[in-house]
C-alpha cells in the first residue's frame, strides 16, 4: 500500500515520488486520469503536464510481477484521446492534417503529420480536452500540390472527464456572519 507521496514540478515536468509499505521488490503501476501508462521498479515517475493543467495520478504498488494493470485499473476518464489511422493507399500523400471540432463549431487544425512511406499507421495524441464537450476529429490526407483528399471521420464523442477543481475565494458579511464563496480571480 502506498502511504505517502511528494510532487515536484519543474517547468512542464511533474515528478511524483511515492513511499510503499510493501517489502521489495515492489512494482509500481502508474495511471494518468485513470489511463494506464506503465510500470516502474522505481518509486518515482515523471509526467509532462503543462502549467495550470490539472491531472489525477494514481499509482498501484504490488509485489506481484504478473499484476494485471488493466484488470485492476482505476476508473478511466482520460482528458486526452489518441487518434489512430492507417495510411492512405494513395502514393502522393505529402502529409496528414488532424482536425478537431468542439461542440459542432469550426474545424481546427490541431496537428500536421508528414507522410512517411515506411509508415503503415499513424497516431496523434490530442491536447487536454474540455469536460462535458462533444468533440469530433477527422484526418485529411493532403498531396504535394496542397489538395485535400477524402477525410477519415471519427464519430463525435462527448468527453466526460474528472473536472478541474475550482480555485475559490471567500468573503464574510459582518452583519450576518455568512460567508460568500466565489471563483478566485
Amino acid at each position, binding site marked *: 500500500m502506498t502511504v505517502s507521496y511528494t*510532487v515536484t514540478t519543474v517547468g512542464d515536468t511533474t515528478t511524483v515520488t511515492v513511499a510503499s509499505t510493501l517489502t521489495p521488490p515492489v512494482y509500481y503501476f502508474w495511471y494518468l486520469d485513470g489511463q494506464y501508462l506503465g510500470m516502474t521498479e522505481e518509486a518515482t515517475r515523471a509526467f509532462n503536464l503543462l502549467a495550470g493543467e*490539472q491531472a*489525477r495520478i494514481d499509482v498501484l504498488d504490488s509485489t506481484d510481477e504478473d499484476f*494485471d494493470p*488493466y*484488470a485492476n485499473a482505476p*476508473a*478511466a*476518464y482520460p482528458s486526452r484521446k*489518441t487518434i*489512430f489511422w*492507417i495510411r492512405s493507399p494513395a502514393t502522393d500523400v505529402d502529409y496528414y492534417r488532424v482536425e478537431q471540432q468542439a461542440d459542432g463549431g469550426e474545424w481546427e487544425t490541431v496537428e500536421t503529420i508528414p507522410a512517411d512511406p515506411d509508415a*503503415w*499507421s499513424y*497516431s496523434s495524441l490530442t491536447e487536454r480536452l474540455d*469536460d*462535458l464537450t462533444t468533440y469530433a476529429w477527422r484526418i485529411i490526407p493532403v498531396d504535394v500540390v496542397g489538395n485535400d483528399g477524402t477525410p477519415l471521420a471519427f464519430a463525435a*464523442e*462527448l468527453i*466526460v*472527464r*474528472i*473536472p*478541474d*477543481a*475550482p*480555485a*475559490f*475565494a*471567500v*468573503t*464574510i*458579511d*459582518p*452583519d*450576518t*456572519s*455568512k*460567508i*460568500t*464563496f*466565489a*471563483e*478566485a480571480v
Partner: protein
Amino acid sequence: MPDLRLELSAVEVHHLAAVGTIPGATPLAAAARNGQGAGTLSNIGTDLQWTAPGSATAGTAVDCSDGGAFTLADGEDVDAWLRVAVTVASLASAAEAWVYLADRYNNGVAEADVDAEDATTGQTLEYQLTLRNADVGLAHNIAVYLESSADDRIWLSADGATWSQPTTAVAGVSLGTLLSTESATLYLKRIVAADAACVPSQLVHLIVNYDYGPSIGWTDWIRKSLCWYCGTATASVPTLIAVRLDCKLDGRGLYRIFNAAEYRLYRSNSAPPAESDTPFATTASLPYTPDDTFADGTWYLSMSYFNGVLDSGFLPVGPLGETYIKIVVDSGVIATTPPNGPLNWHLELLPAGVVRVIGVGCQSDEYAPDEWAVFYAVDGGSDVEVNSTFSQPYSVLDSMIPAQADAAVVVVGVKTRRNDGTTGSPTWVYSDAQATQSVTVDAVGPTAPAGGDDYPGPVPEAVEA
C-alpha cells in the same frame, strides 16, 4: 466459421475501440469477448495470429496470403477474435504489435446517457438490435442473456412484449435459428428508477449463445454429426469439421447516468476538510452564500466541482499544497489571515555546538509576512524565539542558534509573522505551525588518535630477511 453480428441500423456495432497494428493489417473489428486491454497481433510471412488481452495462448495462425478480410481467433477463446483487412504487399516478414482495446460509450448495445432530469424522474427506454448471421452456415439454438454482473437495469425480449433478465444460456431469450444472411430482432429495455444515483460508467454486457453448423436441416445435421463422431462419415457429408456447439457472441457498451452538476462546499472548525466528507452546502453556480453562519473561531474551507458524474476533488490553493482556505472569525469578521509559512527549511550542525537554520519563503500579497520567527528549545526547555526580517517577495532565512553544550537536543520550529499593529504597538499574526525538526548538538571534536611515535629520517624500504 461462425459469424453472427450485432447490428444497429444495418451497421455492425462497434463494441471496442482498437488502436495499434502491424504493417499490412488494418483492424476492422474486435469481438466484444476480448474485453478491454492489450492484445497481440503478429505475423510471420502471410500467417497472422491474434492473442486476446489476458490470454497466454496465441490463436491458430491464419494464412492471409490472398489478402482481404480475415478473422483471427485467440488461442484460449476462439470467440475472442480480431477481424483485420490484410494488404499482403505491406506485410513485413515478421512483426508483432500491441492492439489496445477499450470499451465505447453509447454504441447501441448501451444507449444514450441518462441526463440529470431523467435520472430524477426516472426513465424507461426501449431499443432494438439486429442479430444477423453473416456466415454461410447455420446458427441454431440462439439464446441471449446478460453477463451475470452486468447492469440490472437492462431487460431483454424476443418480441418486445415479454421481458426478462436471464443470466444463463438455458434461461436466455430464444431467437431460434438463423440461416445464412437471416436476421432477428433483439429488444432491449433500460429502466432507470427515479432519483437514480450518478453512474460515471455503466457496462451493458450481452452474451449470445448458439450452435453452429453447415446450412442443412437440423435433423440432418445431427445425424451427419453423429456419423462423423462415429467415424462413419462419408464424402457426402460437407464441412462437418466446422460444426461447433456453444459459440459465443458478446455485445458490450457503456453509458452514464448524470445527476445535476454542482459546486460542493466543505467546512470544518477542527481540521482541514477531506474529500470524503459530506459537503455542508451545494450550489449550481458561484458566487454563492450558504445560509449557514460561521461562529467565532478557526474555520477550514474547501470546494470541489461535481460535473454530474465525477467530482474534481480539491484544488491545492495554498503555497504548500493546502487544499483549503483557513480563516479566523472574530466578532463576525474574518479577523486574520495568517501569512504563508516557509516553503522549505532545514538544520545544519556547525562547529562548537552552533545550529544553523536555513529556509526559504515567498509571498508578496497583502497577507505577506514581515519577519521570520525561529523557535528553539534545548533539552526540553522553554521555547526561545529569534526573529529576522522577511524580505518580500522572496526571503532566505539564515539564522544561527547560539552554541549549545555537546549532546544537547535542540528542537526547532520555523514560522513567519506579520505585524497587523504598529511599529510601536505590534500585533503579530503567525503562520500555521509546521512540523518541528531536531538535532543533537556535536560541540566536541573527535578523541585523539590511539597512539604514535617519531623516527629519525625516512623509514628504510622493506629489507628481505
